[in-house]
């Protein structure tokens, strides 16, 4: 890879063959039947994709982007009705016969799925799955022999960078890592060299370092084979990294369509502007900007971990799994400690250990003067009022049978003995603090939106004025614009109440916006610790460097520069 195409240039230079579009959608409407009546998922979408072009469809949940993607392959469920024209290589997906549609799938257009571990059949080898697609198109005269099909499957695996494909073609999906599984899914899509690939959130389920590799792979395919890609994503960084042209969708409508550089530089519509403004951008809005040394370092130490070790027992006959090993850190009163790491790094385990949800198995963890190694629920209980916890999934962290008001009041009833009116007043105050209307106290959790629920979750965490708040990925289940609002609120309340916080996230940019002190976890070890802005600016550990280099920033020009600069870091 010597030459790198700059996205953000005129897309036509990338695809000189400006012939017929490989995909042409016009007047597409999709309606779903639901319990609550018909829902219009997509309204009047028009879209052309030229050969060799990468078109990103971005939007938040409910925007209709995934539905649009499924329509391109005729994969809508029975409950959907659609109208309009979707031309793939000249045939209208919406009106061809079932067998024509089958011929089209895989040959003219293929799909890459969001979750590679569910998109692969667990009980068949990856080779078998790729061969199924190849042999499905063996009709019209010549049969493809099993041997020939297998050779082509191996070829496809080689193309996506699976080492030793001749051997691994007979492997089962569980024998591959997450990133490799996604490569296999891409290989299966490529097996028949379709001119168009629809990639539905292809990197959302992956860690950011793996995401960088998959994005690189897609870019290479597009560059070498001239494959067109329709990229469905909610991630503006991914868009900036890969797309030539961007279509922004909102509630089933196309809001704006523009070349990638124009969109990021001069968004036309209000929605697009708000969306872009809400995206966290690494290096901007750092909470620790200008800090020279650790803040709050002279304050009381609330949490002190020394060589902390957490092991989970294995099943019968299996060895124990060490989630955290030899981690030392401390959190002082009033400090926001950001803990960042990918899946399996042990960050959640540490947060749960501090809250007494996990037993620790070695080292020492001192929480508010209590040694967690000798944890007993009875003796720890009095300290629980000083610890608040905000969970990742706001939908699941409320008892569906209780109202929001009852949920928020629950800590009061457990630790104090309030009067009914006292509790009611306190809940009112808390709802005000998290900017939720007072009437929400009588609603049930499912009647609130994700962002509202996460605000209520914050209110519950703060009900007893805790000294320490643990927030485990509090915004990663939320849409970008909602995330921005919740983060602002968090920051505001933290300043006002002055509690210490352990903020756990996989997203460096988010952590940097909130935390003054940041720790980077990698496979159960704390590899680096320091002032947020300094870590982001000049990481010392290799892993931190790679992590930062992998994170795409929502700015095409800047991202292209970063990619070029970080090439070596990402490809070793």
């Amino acid at each position, binding site marked *: 890879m010597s030459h790198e195409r700059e996205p953000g240039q005129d897309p036509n230079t990338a695809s000189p063959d400006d012939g017929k579009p490989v995909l042409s959608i016009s007047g597409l409407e999709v309606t*779903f039947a639901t319990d609550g009546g018909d829902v219009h998922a997509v309204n009047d979408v028009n879209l052309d994709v030229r050969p060799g072009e990468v078109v990103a469809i971005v939007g938040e949940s409910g925007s209709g982007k995934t539905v649009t993607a*499924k329509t391109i392959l005729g994969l809508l469920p029975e*409950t959907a009705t659609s109208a309009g024209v979707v031309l793939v290589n000249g045939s209208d997906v919406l009106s061809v016969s079932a067998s024509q549609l089958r011929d089209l799938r895989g040959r003219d257009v293929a799909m890459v799925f969001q979750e590679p571990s569910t998109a692969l059949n667990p009980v068949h080898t990856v080779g078998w799955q790729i061969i199924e697609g190849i042999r499905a198109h063996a009709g019209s005269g010549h049969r493809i022999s099993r041997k020939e099909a297998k050779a082509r499957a191996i070829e496809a695996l080689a193309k996506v960078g699976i080492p030793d494909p001749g051997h691994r073609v007979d492997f089962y999906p569980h024998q591959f890592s997450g990133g490799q599984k996604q490569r296999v899914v891409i290989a299966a899509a490529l097996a028949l060299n379709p001119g168009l690939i629809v990639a539905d*959130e292809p990197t959302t389920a992956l860690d950011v370092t793996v995401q960088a590799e998959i994005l690189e792979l897609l870019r290479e395919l597009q560059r070498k084979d001239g494959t067109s890609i329709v990229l469905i994503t909610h991630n503006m960084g991914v868009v900036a990294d890969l797309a030539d042209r961007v279509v922004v969708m909102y509630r089933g409508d196309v809001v704006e369509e523009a070349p990638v550089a124009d969109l990021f530089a001069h968004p036309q519509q209000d929605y697009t502007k708000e969306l872009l403004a809400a995206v966290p951008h690494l290096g901007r809005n750092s909470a620790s900007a200008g800090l020279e040394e650790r803040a709050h370092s002279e304050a009381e130490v609330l949490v002190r971990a020394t060589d902390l070790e957490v092991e989970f027992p294995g099943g019968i006959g299996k060895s124990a799994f060490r989630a955290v090993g030899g981690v030392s850190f401390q959190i002082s009163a009033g400090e926001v400690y950001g803990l960042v790491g990918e899946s399996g790094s042990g960050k959640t385990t540490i947060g749960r250990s501090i809250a007494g*949800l996990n037993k620790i198995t070695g080292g020492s963890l001192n929480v508010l003067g209590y040694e967690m190694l000798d944890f007993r629920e009875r003796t720890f209980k009095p300290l*629980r009022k000083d610890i608040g916890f905000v969970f990742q999934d706001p939908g699941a962290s409320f008892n569906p049978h209780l109202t929001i008001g009852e949920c928020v009041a*629950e800590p009061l*009833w457990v630790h104090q003995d309030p009067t009914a009116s006292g509790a009611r007043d306190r809940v009112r105050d808390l709802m005000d603090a998290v900017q939720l209307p007072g009437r929400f*106290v009588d609603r049930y959790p*499912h009647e609130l939106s994700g962002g509202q629920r996460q605000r209520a979750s914050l209110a519950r965490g703060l009900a007893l004025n805790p000294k320490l708040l643990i927030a485990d990925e509090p915004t990663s289940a939320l849409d970008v614009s909602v995330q921005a609002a919740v983060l602002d609120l968090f920051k505001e309340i933290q300043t006002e109440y002055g509690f210490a916080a352990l903020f756990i996230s996989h997203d460096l940019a988010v952590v940097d916006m909130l935390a003054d002190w940041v720790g980077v976890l990698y496979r159960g070890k704390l590899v680096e610790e320091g002032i947020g802005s300094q870590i982001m600016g000049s990481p010392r550990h290799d892993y931190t460097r790679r992590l930062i280099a992998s994170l795409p920033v929502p700015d095409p020009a800047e991202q292209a520069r970063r990619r070029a600069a970080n090439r070596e870091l990402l490809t070793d």
Partner: protein
Amino acid sequence: MDTTTSKPARQPRWTRLPIISHLRKSVGLQRTMLIIGLILSGILFLTAIFAPLIAPYGYAQASADGANFGAQMAPSAAHIWGTTVGGYDVFSRVIWGAQTAALVIVLGVLMSIFAGVILGLVSGYLGGWVDRLLVVIADAIYAFPALLLAIVMSIVISGGQSNLFGGIMAAAISITVVFIPQYFRVARAETIRLKAEPFVESAKVIGTSNLRIISRHVFPNATRTMPLIFTLNAAESILTLAGLGFLGFGIEPSSAAEWGYDLNKALADATSGIWWTGLFPGLAIVLTVLGLTLVGESMNDLNDPRLRGRRRAGRKKRGGPDMPADAYVNGTGLEVTK
């Protein structure tokens, strides 16, 4: 306890009751199945309640106005479904049999729900070696033929022969013992699932006591699948009762009417071509079990979004068949994203 709030009522409360809410959200075929099931089950319980009014004769009555009915009489005006080998009126015994069946269902299922659910909740929540022991025992019992266990139990309880109350209690207790493991497994599985739910963990983080967590957070959410098992086990208990009766462990004909016992006696009749003594009690069993199973199955489907049928929009269908609609459309948005 009920502190800051009064309950909001978007929909009247009764619409959230199990069967009614299921009926409201069912469509098409599933609705038909559910309604047929409800009607059949309704007939059973109505027949049981009004048996004395419906049945022309008593269950142990072999003569009227001093005249014997006669054995194995073909259906006639006096005995619309004929008479049995013992000289009883088939129609009356089938009607009275509904009473026995309903009693056994109610007693057996209530007792097993009680024991099974409490054991499952506590065992699942606390875990540890008690839990492990109970699971091994429950699994062992579960794997064992229910009928055999019921036989052993009825030997224990009544020595194998019995009057009305003893017979019904024996059958009900046998069924209880057979089904406790099932309720136990389900309640325990639900509890373990709920224990890992963030809302239970958030109660734990707050410092809520175990008792309060179980009663306020786990139990109300763990009963979701209970109506389903209730109906399926009610169906199974009828089959177990009939099986016991068929093997001669039922209730003596002089104490109560029992369909399985009558079928046992009808077996020899069938060889000589006498069909009415077996057909009607048999059909009564089939329709009862069918009704209860239809209700249970429909509830199961409606609870499981993967199996739940949906209204189809408009006229034209598109795309591959047989896909779960919920992957695309769920309550909040239309997409599966972050």
